[in-house]
């Protein structure tokens, strides 16, 4: 694809002209694609500018939710609007600060720089800083012929330099940092020996890149620019003409995908990554139609090229599942026949157990996708729908526009690329929970069966033999806690997002109380499932953030957390607990959370926000069926 979907563009223009802002924004999002050529993408970025100007003139400007600085020693004037465009497409309204080129270090090291003096004006403060470095920024390249020890020292100096920049930024702004790793240039003066010789530039780049990953603290995300350069082709990526001419660090045509890659990381930090891949069956997971061709007539697995391509696609999907992306099936099929292919076809790589939610029926797919989202307790905007049938894709785009629907190549050998190029499942960190998520969801299904069998809820809870570990946020729980803070939508009382850096600061602040709960039961370990951040305020403890994974709803974890909060408050001499509920389209589940726990209402605001208070004097802990593990 080099130009945007003309339908989306036409819809955008008419919605914009008619002042239908949300519809216009949705159409523009649909037109944005990482495979657009530079001229088309730049034109869309201009359309975004028009939309924003029109909205601002009508007094309907959306709130900017992210302050972002893009620092580079090279020209970023082409990259910045594209970055803004892809963030917008991912649902992030950013306000961008892009200082002049060549000022990366000055902006960070000068305490009086614009970066630290409220750059961006009235917008949100800068909470993410991108360091768009390239191989030309390497300051300690070993001299030709340098020995191994000298080259190792050069790597250490290079990493120490960048670490000091990260730390300076973090100390002043408390921000997240996105740091490019280094793109090895295409030429090799040492030819094939370049990668082996310690003084070779390619060798130095590779070593620095590994060392950067190892040195990066939780508030730094390394953006794998070198992988981008390799996938585009290094000669294409590093178009030297535009460097000599205009100091562009990489070829303009590559900047579209480069911007998309950066935006996907920032969006993932904002909790915008997708969570579940919903797969069609016939001609998507295998060749042929199982209802017509029968299980034995399917093209799948060894023996022919098409069958191997389908198997390769399944292997890729299985890899996603292993790292925590949920898989679901949505197919127009007889459920028993569809299931038979999973059980009986020798070429199947995906097992029936790999599928968190299996829907085979004759209902329209938009309705089925809504039901899948509901069953998995995730939003429609967490789904990616993969179907070879263009008519189904069109239907879902129209009736469930929140779902991401990639165009699928007609050749199954290109399915992986068709989906992967969108970076839907971008991730900034992996936790133990991610690696085990698919099994957790399967255990949930087993628990649901148990619940039905156990008769009463009380008896069921006892039979679960739950054990909780309650700790403040510490080094071990920091990343998972920050991940939950940034992606929990449903059981989340205030939906306040804090970066890993913010969470770290709060955890160390004596004015705050932090709580995390990990829960195990007889079916397995659920991992860390609840986070609370509370701030001391006079004689009260104010609950700023209270969130929980929906997988452990109605198990008594809320009561357990309240008991612990009460203890923590009493230990600090606080007399009351205060809570706030801020309604969002997704957290209706907890609207009555505080009243259910015995808090009394303290009034409400026009936007539906409610305030609650609980007196701690003479209060007895609430009963639960959860044992406490020694911490």
């Amino acid at each position, binding site marked *: 694809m*080099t130009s945007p979907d003309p339908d989306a563009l036409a819809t955008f223009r008419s919605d914009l002209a008619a002042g239908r802002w949300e519809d216009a924004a949705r159409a523009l999002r649909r037109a944005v694609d990482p495979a657009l*050529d*530079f*001229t088309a993408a*730049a*034109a869309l970025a*201009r359309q975004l500018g028009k939309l924003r100007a029109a909205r601002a003139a009508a007094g309907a400007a959306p709130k900017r939710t992210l302050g972002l600085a893009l620092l580079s020693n090279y020209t970023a*004037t*082409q990259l910045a609007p594209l970055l803004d465009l892809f963030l917008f497409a991912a649902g992030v309204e950013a306000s961008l600060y892009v200082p002049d080129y060549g000022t990366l270090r000055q902006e960070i090291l000068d305490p009086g720089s614009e970066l630290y003096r409220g750059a961006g004006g009235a917008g949100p403060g800068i909470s993410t800083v991108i360091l768009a470095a390239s191989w030309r920024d390497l300051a300690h390249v070993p001299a030709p012929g340098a020995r191994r020890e000298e080259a190792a020292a050069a790597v250490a100096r290079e990493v120490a330099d960048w670490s000091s920049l990260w730390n300076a930024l973090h100390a002043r702004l408390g921000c997240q940092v996105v740091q490019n790793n280094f793109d090895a240039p295409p030429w090799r003066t040492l030819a094939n020996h370049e990668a082996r010789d310690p003084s070779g530039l390619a060798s130095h780049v590779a070593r620095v890149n590994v060392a950067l990953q190892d040195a990066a603290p939780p508030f730094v995300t390394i953006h794998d620019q070198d992988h981008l350069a390799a996938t585009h082709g290094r000669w294409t990526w590093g178009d*030297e*003409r*535009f460097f*000599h*001419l*205009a100091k*562009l660090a990489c070829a*303009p*045509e590559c900047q579209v995908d480069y911007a998309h890659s950066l935006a996907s990381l920032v969006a993932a930090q904002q909790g915008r990554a997708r969570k579940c891949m919903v797969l069609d069956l016939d001609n998507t997971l295998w060749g042929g139609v199982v209802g017509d061709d029968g299980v034995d007539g399917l093209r799948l697995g060894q023996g022919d090229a098409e069958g191997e391509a389908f198997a390769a696609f399944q292997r890729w999907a299985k890899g996603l599942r292993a790292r925590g992306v949920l898989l679901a099936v949505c197919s127009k099929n007889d459920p028993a026949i569809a299931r038979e292919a999973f059980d009986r076809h020798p070429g199947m790589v995906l097992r029936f157990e790999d599928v968190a939610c299996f829907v085979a029926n004759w209902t329209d797919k938009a309705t089925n996708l809504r039901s899948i989202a509901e069953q998995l307790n995730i939003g429609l905007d967490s789904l990616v729908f993969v179907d070879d049938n263009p008519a189904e894709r069109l239907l879902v785009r129209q009736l469930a526009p929140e779902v991401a629907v990639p165009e699928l190549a007609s050749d199954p050998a290109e399915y992986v690329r068709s989906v992967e190029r969108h970076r839907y499942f971008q991730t900034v960190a992996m936790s133990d929970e991610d690696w085990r998520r698919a099994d957790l969801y399967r255990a949930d299904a087993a628990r649901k069966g148990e619940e039905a069998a156990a008769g009463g809820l009380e008896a069921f809870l006892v039979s679960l033999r739950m054990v909780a570990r309650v700790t403040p946020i510490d080094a071990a729980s920091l990343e998972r806690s920050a991940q939950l803070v940034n992606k929990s939508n449903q059981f989340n009382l205030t939906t306040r997002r804090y970066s890993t850096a913010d969470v770290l600061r709060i955890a160390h602040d004596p004015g705050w109380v932090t709580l995390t709960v990990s829960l195990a039961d007889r079916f397995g370990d659920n991992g860390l499932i609840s986070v609370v951040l509370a701030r001391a305020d006079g004689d009260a403890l104010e609950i700023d953030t209270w969130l929980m994974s929906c997988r452990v709803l109605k198990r008594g974890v809320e009561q357990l957390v309240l008991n612990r909060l009460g203890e923590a408050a009493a230990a600090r001499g606080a007399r009351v607990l205060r809570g706030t509920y801020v309604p969002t389209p997704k957290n209706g589940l907890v609207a009555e959370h505080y009243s259910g726990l015995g808090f009394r209402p303290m009034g409400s605001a026009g936007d539906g926000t409610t305030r609650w208070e609980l007196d701690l004097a003479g209060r007895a802990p609430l009963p639960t069926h959860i044992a406490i593990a020694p911490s």
Partner: protein
Amino acid sequence: MPPTDDVLARLQQLLREVFGDDTLVVSDATTADDVDGWDSLMHVNIIIAIEKRFGVKFAAAEIASLKGEGQNLGTFRQLLTRKLASAKAPPG
């Protein structure tokens, strides 16, 4: 009056796209100074668009010279026409 030369007509269409202005009219005599917003950033964007859409490639020095003293769209068009012709010419 619309441009009569085919390359010039295509250039005009492309400049309209790059500048986001459907009313832009150019001729051989047009210089960068005549077009609102044709700064060095836009110059790079114009070159990128021409290379991609016409399937040609400019040398770094050519790109720089096209915005220089005494240059106008006519010199631009002539260079482009030469490149298109040599791209079509049989090898040898």
